[in-house]
């Protein structure tokens, strides 16, 4: 059976060249980079090279990069590290209602520990209004944390514009760039951020490794406490093969991302157009233009999302109903809710995310199966005649 993976926003296969770089660091060059002997020093050198590559990818200095166990830890580190280090200055933090759970749950944790949070709304396309940020800033505000692009609906936020506002006020600014680093042009100075989270497995690196950019001079406490690794900012023996894989993935992304983004945008727009051509009562979620190159998120009315996914899966096609980590719950996505999708329509939402190995043939095959499945599910539904479209 043909297998088509259209869930690149959930995770990507590790690039074969990245795998090739990683494997020797498991068994051959296996030293602990903190060791002063040759076994350790050889690996230390490679870890520092990886740091340079990651720094280069986002326009940072290598000393400003701290490796983490992924995007979630990086987001937690940013929020909790800033909060605990600056609580004497204030206890107010601004974020948005469409952040990834890695940010939202860290915020909930901080709320329980005495911090006050503002969750900004978004418009119907998922955009945050920079003026809302300006208005939300108080005397006690110590941090603004807003995602660079949303993982579910693909909307790209006006981070640079917001960064200007936040910087003027002398407040720390964090962006969750897990969906954009390695995919789009991401530069910490253009974006005017003090902190930026990224994750290797979203751009053809391994799962379980990421990084937090921390602008020089930023006042924060470590999140994981222990040994002196990462200049005492993140303790724990380094995931050396993972870090070296992240470095390689950053290097590859640097070279290929522009061309690849262009290719994906074309495929994406083709697929969206065909979905609208071939299926009735569909709506596109997320901004039509300010959108991740590989993201398609549509609500297909009169169809329930899970059965859609399962039917596609039976046809070898992998898609998602939103973020992978929420698919074990029954609640409809907080992001779709935030952009005002009616709940019964949200139930019929599906996300296709395209990537490096996606071909036009994959898209055509998916379209064929999607149309078939929607037809089948609508025919089973008691509502195919009764329901009114809400779009």
């Amino acid at each position, binding site marked *: 059976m043909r297998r088509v993976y259209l869930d690149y926003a959930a995770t990507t296969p590790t690039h074969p060249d990245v795998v090739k770089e990683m494997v020797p660091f498991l068994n051959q060059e296996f030293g602990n980079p903190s060791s002063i002997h040759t076994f350790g020093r050889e690996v230390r050198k490679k870890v520092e090279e990886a740091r340079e590559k990651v720094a280069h990818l986002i326009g940072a200095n290598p000393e400003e990069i701290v490796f983490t166990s992924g995007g979630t830890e990086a987001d937690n580190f940013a929020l909790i590290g800033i909060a605990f280090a600056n609580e004497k200055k204030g206890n107010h933090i601004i974020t948005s209602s469409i952040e990834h759970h890695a940010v939202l749950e860290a915020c909930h944790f901080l709320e329980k520990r005495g911090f006050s949070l503002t969750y900004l709304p978004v418009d119907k396309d998922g955009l945050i209004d920079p003026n809302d940020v300006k208005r939300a800033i108080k005397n006690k505000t110590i941090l603004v944390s807003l995602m660079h692009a949303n993982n579910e609906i693909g909307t790209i936020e006006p981070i640079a514009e917001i960064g200007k506002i936040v910087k003027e006020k002398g407040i720390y600014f964090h962006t969750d760039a897990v969906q954009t680093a390695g995919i789009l042009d991401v530069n910490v100075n253009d974006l005017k951020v003090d902190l930026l989270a990224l994750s290797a497995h979203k751009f053809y690196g391994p799962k379980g490794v990421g990084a937090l950019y921390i602008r020089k001079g930023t006042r924060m406490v470590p999140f994981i406490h222990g040994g002196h690794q990462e200049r005492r900012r993140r303790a724990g023996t380094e995931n050396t093969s993972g870090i070296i894989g992240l470095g390689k993935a950053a290097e590859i992304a640097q070279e290929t991302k522009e061309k690849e983004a262009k290719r994906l945008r074309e495929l994406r727009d083709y697929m969206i157009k065909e979905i609208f051509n071939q299926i009735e009562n569909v709506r596109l979620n997320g901004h039509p233009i300010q959108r991740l190159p590989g993201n398609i998120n549509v609500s297909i009315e*009169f169809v329930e999302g899970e059965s859609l996914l399962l039917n596609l899966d*039976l046809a070898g096609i992998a898609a998602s109903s939103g973020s992978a980590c929420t698919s074990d719950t029954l609640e409809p996505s907080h992001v779709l809710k935030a952009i005002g999708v009616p709940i*019964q329509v949200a139930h019929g939402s599906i996300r296709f995310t395209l990537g490096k190995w996606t071909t036009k043939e994959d898209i055509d095959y998916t379209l064929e199966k999607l149309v078939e499945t929607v037809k089948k599910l609508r025919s*089973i539904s*008691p509502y195919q005649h009764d329901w009114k479209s809400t779009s």
Partner: protein
Amino acid sequence: MYSEKVMDHFNNPRNVGVMENPDGVGTVGNPVCGDVMKLYIKVKDERIVDAKFQTFGCGAAIATSSMVTEIVKGKTIKEALKISNKTVAEALDGLPPVKMHCSVLAEEALKAAINDYFSQKGKSKKEKVSKQD
């Protein structure tokens, strides 16, 4: 996640569709919750001789709908009233915990259809069937 039986009934649902002139019809659930089941039964001599369904919902919702129609066919009304959500779930070799509510929905749809049958027969006052948990 799902058992093979669930996937089989999901992928090839039995008894799908509208029934012409049913003796009882039950509709339960709500599109806002993501699941709606409509169950039709045909009754002859207090025995369910045919059942059909239409469902909007997740894989488990479709599979439990399909399974309950299979189980109920040939049963007397009395026997059918004894079918619980567990009967349906077990017949499907189990359901994930978060999906057990779908089997409850299937039970409720069946009870609703039988109630409707009683109403149509004018028996509703005497033998009203109460919803079970």
